[in-house]
């Protein structure tokens, strides 16, 4: 078990290094630091000195990948790539164009994002599993057929529809929740209610359908027949045997759901005006701030890799076959 976990952890670090290389290539090779400086300082008529000063302030005045003028190891270390990568791996993200500390911003903004993502994750997974089990219990009946029809309909509806309709119904017509906004913990609940509800409904279609298929697949197996032959009740078969054996694919799907949540948070946060990581990324895009977007890409990937690692650990915990391999 230990070797398995250590191996997965080491591999994750390797993956992080790869991500760093890819993002660096994207951000520094397509547009050179000179282009970036001109963009920030404004237009084509910027003096070369100003460009040089801007680059020097950020440490972008060295060669990108390979410094032929330096000596020894310096050939590789005295480069933009090495310097900025070393900082990123230490989780030092530098400053935005308006001179705010990105690391501090991330620390402030991760709270609202998690306050949104964790309830969504918990509620939608539990609800989907319960509904999936329910549909399987009533399989081959009218309830199941129509249930699937509704699920496919939900799957085919754009999440924008749920958001816009949610805001229209709950905030404009019924005035139960505010349209958008956010406040720190004591008053947080009413602001989170609508985004969480909308997101849970949007996730319900694909998730429940997936779980239903998983459970149906398990139901066809021999151990289920044995359990039934022993006289175990149908709910006990579903809850104790089928659910437990479907855990691996469920964990996989949750692992895949987490990234979707992060992606969804960009949409939800901009829509509902929640000052989380998503809005930060969108701010970076609209103000064309490369340092914010690069930090967000790396930080987002970092969260992903951690999630995948946790998924691997969860596999090992839930399935002895993985541990012993």
């Amino acid at each position: 078990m230990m070797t398995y976990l250590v191996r997965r952890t080491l591999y994750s670090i390797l993956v992080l290094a790869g991500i760093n290389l890819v993002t660096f290539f994207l951000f520094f090779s397509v547009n050179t630091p000179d282009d970036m400086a001109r963009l920030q300082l404004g237009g084509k008529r910027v003096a070369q000195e100003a460009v040089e000063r801007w680059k020097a302030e950020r440490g972008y005045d060295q060669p990108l990948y390979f410094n032929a003028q330096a000596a020894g190891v310096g050939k590789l270390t005295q480069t933009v790539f090495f310097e900025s990568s070393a900082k990123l791996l230490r989780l030092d993200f530098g400053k935005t164009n308006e001179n705010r500390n990105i690391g501090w911003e991330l620390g402030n903004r991760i709270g609202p994002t998690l306050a949104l993502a964790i309830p969504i994750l918990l509620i939608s997974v539990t609800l989907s599993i319960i509904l999936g089990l329910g549909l399987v219990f009533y399989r081959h009946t009218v309830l199941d057929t129509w249930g699937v029809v509704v699920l496919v309909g939900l799957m085919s509806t754009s999440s924008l529809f749920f958001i816009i309709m949610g805001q229209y119904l709950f905030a404009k017509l019924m005035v139960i929740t505010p349209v958008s906004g956010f406040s720190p913990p004591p008053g947080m609940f009413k602001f989170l209610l609508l985004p969480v509800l909308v997101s849970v409904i949007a996730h319900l279609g694909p998730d429940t359908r997936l779980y239903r298929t998983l459970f149906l697949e398990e139901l066809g197996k021999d151990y289920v027949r044995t359990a039934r032959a022993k006289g175990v009740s149908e709910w006990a078969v579903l809850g104790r045997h089928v659910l437990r054996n479907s855990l691996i694919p469920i964990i996989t799907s949750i692992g895949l759901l987490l990234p979707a949540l992060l992606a969804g948070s960009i949409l939800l946060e901009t829509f509902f005006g929640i000052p989380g990581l998503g809005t930060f990324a969108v701010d970076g895009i609209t103000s064309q701030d490369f340092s914010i977007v690069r930090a967000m890409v790396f930080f987002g990937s970092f969260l992903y890799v951690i999630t995948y690692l946790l998924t691997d650990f969860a596999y090992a915990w839930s399935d002895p076959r993985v541990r012993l391999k």
Partner: protein
Amino acid sequence: MKIVVLWTDWVVLLVLLGTLTYGWKVMRQPHLAVTWRKAFNTATGTSAATVLAVFLVIGLLDSLHYRPAIAGKADAYATETRSVLDDILHQQQTGRERSYSAPLAYQGYEKEATVIDGQATRAYLRLQHGGAHLDQPEQQWAADVLLRTVAGVGLGLLLAAAATALVVLLLARKRRQGLGMAWRSLRRGQVGFPLRAVLLTLTVLAVLAGVMTMLATAYHVLGTDRVGNDLLYVVLKSIRTALVIGTMSTLVTMPIAVGLGICAGYLRGWVDEAIQYVYTVINSIPYVLLIAAVVLILMVFIDNHPDLFPTSAERTDARLFFLCIILGMTSWTELCRLIRGEVIKLREAEYIQAAQAFGVGTWRILSVHLLPNVMHLILISMVINFSGLVLAEAVLSYVGIGVDPSMQSFGTLINTARLELSREPTIWWTLATAFTFMFSLVLSANLFSDAIRDAFDPRATHK
């Protein structure tokens, strides 16, 4: 007239050609033909495919671009690039109003400042095009709309009846039966192929189209948007964008996915490890952020190199093209993993081992023996990814990292309408139009992909 072929047009035509070639090959290979026939053998699957085909035809008509010649001058062409769809919808494209008007309305939705009998007042003004043929709209409007609807239904039913008659005729000839016999077996669904479902779907579509056309000659069927564009025109133009994004994204990165997948699966060892590492890395970057980053980088690149993109149409098209590439990058890994898995299974097959024993080169095994046998995976993954990509486009355009704002798409349409529900009085038709069309496109794609998945997934057969 000068024919213009945009980048994305090339891709659309290539996709069509590729699909037709593949279809022709499938017909000749019994094992593939059986599976594909199974996919089309369910009523939902074929009905969904019929609806999809209608969308495809609209998209195709919109992909045939040309620049009209300027009258009276030789070798001079208008700067505007038009498509065949623009010609069909000429009345809708040019029949602009001043601002919002409700579906089928004959007057504006909001009061406008005007002069009546020498006095400046605010009143509901007649539309310039919608219902302009009515003298006394208050009395005539309801009767006119009803008449046109009935005529449209009649037209649709007539068309559907003609199609059914043709099918019955062909069926009777093929089975060497009498016409009555063929009609009865068709009606009972005993023809071995869900023809009945297809004809029913076609009937519904024909009636809808008939009503739309009869009404569209005199009204704005779906209303107009803020600047007075006919929404029917806008939403039909959006279909092409959705189709291009839905299919092209999988296709542009397909060579990489197929090449790497086959190599990883067949060669194994360090090649496999390296390829797996590459796709794990790309998979680990959150796709929205990756797309955001690339679109941002691209915008800066286009700004810095104006000489590469002389016209705004090329800029818009280039942005769509790169958006497809980057969307493909995010779904690429899934296809690569699938192909790798399939090849790992195939390399143990007898014919591959026979090829190895005969000393066939690795390159030849990869290209001649393995490639044709994973081709169906590409088409399947294209169909399965399609709906997700269409939905993703709307979301991305909404956040501002999708297609160019000047390009007609579901995302930009929803984006312009985002605040309309909070207006007083509420303007509902823009969003309703966008969501209805998107829903029917995505739903039919989902149902069709379900049918295909069921046909190709061996585990699904016992269900």
